[in-house]
């Protein structure tokens, strides 16, 4: 019996080979030698798997591919091909492809030919399915709308999120009173966040868009943790590494517990002396981490991140460093998440937050000097042109709040529609902007984005 890794590798290879065939066929003719050769390899592979496993089904659900019901894990190596395949499947409304025994190169050639020509048809999927009617070994399925109890999922995601916030609040209070912190619990909280992100990324990312002014520090720590884990996942970090990253991100601001409340909660601009105190929090963070936790690999990492998260990519920022060592990967990740959440939130000393898209634009300007440009590129590809929490007007004149990204097409996020075309408040519903009508045209597109902070729109009404 093949082991888990072998099965996963086989599934990844299968998807990758399919993407290669389609890419090559888009450039050349499906009868070209390069295409034929990759088809032959693919057929050989599929038939070997069919002999071993029986019928094989590739399915696209949400943002992931599944092979025979098992999710194919995100692989950095194949990232571009997976994104490509996902995008191309969606363009054709193709949700699944079943392989039965006896797949021949001719069958695949027929599929590729139909696949390439169908996007321009009024109903690409019908066109594709029609072309494959006589091919017994292949059975295409239409892209399914994800039918889930969205409310239940939200409920569980919300619980994960608020539990993390409540835990962080408890940690910070305990540090102030000198009580012991349970690292066991910290790990469990972050494990749940990692699991939730792996399964329901958009829902948990959505929670980070609901800003809480009153309990900013706690929410901010959790948001930074979530955004860091999400970026880490995009970078292909292992589950264990994601947990470590989540914990160090959650603890990045612990040094703030030593800032006197009258400074931390000061509603006006800080004086120079007050800034000097604020700038000490990375140093205090290191001390707190080693006070609350025994020395181990994760506390070493947490201390490094606590110290470095305000040091810029060009080594400006604070604290001032004597030796120009390269910043830790986790510090650079947390720094991006920290900036993004910070400038999109209303804080005591910075009342006017930026809209998510403006925040990203500002961060792009700061890349190279303040932020690692390549990590920022990965981050922007994660959150999209219209990050969760963006207020948008659609081409239908409806207003909506972006509630989820669509990695295969950044222009087409999922949007919670909140008004009708006349601007009248409606019962909110979620629209996936990838959705097409019978004419093959998208039902909705983003026309423009707005600064949500100019209006008293409470995102909690729609995203909670």
């Amino acid at each position: 019996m093949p082991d888990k890794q072998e099965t996963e590798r086989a599934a990844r290879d299968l998807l990758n080979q399919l993407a290669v065939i389609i890419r090559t066929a888009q450039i050349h003719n499906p009868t070209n030698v390069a295409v034929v050769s990759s088809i032959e390899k693919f057929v050989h592979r599929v038939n070997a798997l069919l002999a071993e496993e029986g019928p094989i089904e590739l399915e696209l659900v949400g943002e992931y591919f599944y092979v025979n019901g098992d999710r194919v894990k995100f692989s950095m190596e194949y990232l571009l091909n997976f994104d490509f395949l996902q995008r191309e499947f969606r363009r054709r409304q193709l949700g699944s492809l079943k392989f039965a025994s006896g797949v021949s190169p001719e069958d695949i050639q027929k599929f590729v030919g139909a696949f390439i020509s169908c996007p321009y048809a009024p109903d690409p999927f019908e066109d594709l399915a029609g072309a494959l009617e006589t091919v017994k070994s292949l059975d295409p399925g239409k892209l399914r709308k994800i039918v889930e109890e969205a409310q239940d999922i939200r409920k569980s995601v919300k619980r994960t999120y608020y539990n993390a916030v409540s835990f962080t609040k408890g940690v910070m209070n305990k540090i102030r009173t000198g009580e012991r912190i349970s690292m066991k619990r910290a790990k469990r909280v972050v494990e749940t966040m990692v699991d939730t992100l792996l399964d329901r990324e958009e829902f948990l990312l959505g929670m980070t868009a609901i800003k809480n002014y009153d309990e900013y520090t706690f929410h901010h720590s959790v948001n930074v943790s979530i955004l860091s884990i999400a970026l880490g996942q995009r970078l292909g970090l292992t589950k264990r590494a994601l947990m470590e990253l989540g914990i160090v991100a959650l603890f990045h601001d612990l040094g703030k517990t030593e800032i006197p409340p009258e400074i931390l909660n000061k509603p006006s601009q800080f004086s120079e002396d007050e800034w000097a105190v604020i700038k000490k929090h990375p140093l205090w963070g290191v001390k707190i981490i080693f006070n609350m936790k025994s020395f181990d690999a994760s506390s070493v990492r947490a201390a490094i991140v606590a110290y470095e998260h305000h040091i810029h990519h060009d080594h400006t920022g604070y604290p001032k460093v004597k030796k120009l060592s390269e910043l830790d990967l986790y510090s650079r990740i947390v720094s991006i998440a920290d900036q993004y959440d910070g400038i999109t939130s209303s804080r005591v000393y910075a009342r006017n937050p930026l809209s998510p898209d403006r925040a990203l634009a500002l961060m792009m300007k700061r890349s190279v000097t303040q932020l690692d440009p390549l990590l920022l590129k990965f981050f922007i590809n994660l959150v999209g042109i219209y990050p969760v929490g963006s207020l948008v007007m659609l081409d239908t004149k409806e207003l909506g709040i972006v509630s989820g990204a669509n990695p295969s097409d950044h222009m087409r996020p999922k949007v919670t529609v909140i008004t009708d075309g006349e601007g009248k408040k409606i019962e909110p519903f979620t629209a996936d902007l990838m959705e097409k009508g019978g004419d093959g045209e998208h039902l909705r597109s983003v026309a423009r984005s707005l600064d949500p902070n100019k209006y008293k729109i409470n995102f909690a009404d729609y995203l909670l």
Partner: protein
Amino acid sequence: MSLADEVKFAQELVQVFHRARKNLRMYPVNNPIYARTIEETYRKAEEFLEDYGDLDFHIKQNEILLHGKPVYQSADKEDNFAFFFFKDGLRELLFARGLQQDEMREFLQAISYDFERQGEDEDVVTLLWQRDFEHIKYIIDENFLLEDDAYEEEATARLKEERTEESDLRLAHEDAMKEESAQKGLEIAPLSQNDLAWLVKEIEKDSGDKVPRLVEILFDLYTEQGIPGGDAIKIINEALRYTVENENLASANHILQAARALAEDQGVPENLRRELKQVFVFASSPEIVKIIGDLLDSGGHVQEEVFESYVQRLEKEAISSFITVLGELKTIEARKVFINALAYLGGKDINALARGLSDPRWYIVRNIIYIFRRIGDRRAVEFLVRAAHHGDVRVRMEALRTLGELGGQGVVQTLKDALDDPEATIRTTAARSLGMLKSEPAKKLILARISDKEFPALEFSEKKEYFEVLANWRDQETIDFLMRALKATSFFKKSRTEELKACAAFSLGLLGHKEALSHLHKMRDSKNKLLSEYAYTAIKRIEYAG
């Protein structure tokens, strides 16, 4: 097969798991029982899965259930298998068909983890989570994680206090209808192959040792006085302990090197430089040295040159730590490493090393004397002279040998005294040491001893040792003395005389004295077998040397 059979089998299996947990805690990984336990547990579980399909345990505080039937029950507070899972929030544990032996091994290792000793920061759920099993699933009670039951409800209610008004939406809508209010969309550059190649390198780089970076930070913290000096020193010392515990002496060296650089930096305030001494004191403490000792004893990987470099950075205070721990080491390899370390450190402070001579353990005293010999510092003689009177023969021998190598004041007298020791081994060692001195007084002592009327009564082997020692002097007096002994005749106690002649032949052979050849050839034909053999050997030696 009935439900009752299934439940009975599951009961046995839980007991197998329970026993396996105990065995894995008790035996080291390389013990055959360890491997056998895993294999047998796997086989039993596999058999169950074959017969009955997936095994789905429900966990309660004091019992484990299968299909609602108890398969394990215990009210014990200490050794309660159900509670072990229950306390960490685990409520359901499922083993699926297709379970692999590796999965079983990792599962058993997770449940046999010694949370009290190995790490309080772990719990069984985290250990299972990290392993990401394919055929072992579990369900946890999320309530276990709740810090504050009411927090979510209250926070949500607070957030929803201010409802979005129709008028606000209208205003936003009106603004959005005006083209100029639109924000320019962001342009996203797609990820390229180069980006991914960069990422692969970054992740590879990220697997490196993080301690050096932390050390830089800690010393920055220290000099910037961002946190009180004492706190910073405490953290630096903890970092040091961590690196040593993790067999990372290279990073420990990095810490000591940075501390030394700072301590010698005139730009750093005097009080801070002074405080840094504590880092070296800690690095030299019995606590740290004990960790190193345990590490060496357990076969841990310590690179020789890295360890040497660490020792070279230590203060002389480390000497007493190394001596204390030396006596507790279990392996020869570890003792060798410690002796090398002491040979280096002892050179910094002979007196500190000499304190080890008062150790109640004879083998430690012997090791210290050996270390003195390695160091080769004559200042050690005064301590060794005392050690030459130690109650243990093995210590006395080592002291005499070392005195012979070192030489110096008082040595001859000590060796002379030792020639009267009741132990033959001590007497011969003292004689050999006198030979090493090669001094005139030493020669006189040996000649006097051989000439003593009691000498012939000694064992042949001891007598031979004295004559061998005598060969260290190539002067006429020695040659004449030996030739006299070779030519000696006696009617009484003939055998003893012949033994002495054999010894003289042996010594002359060592000296390569050609003039002795004619006498030796005559002795070759002696009826005394011993004499004949020794004469023959001496002839061969002289002829070969010539």
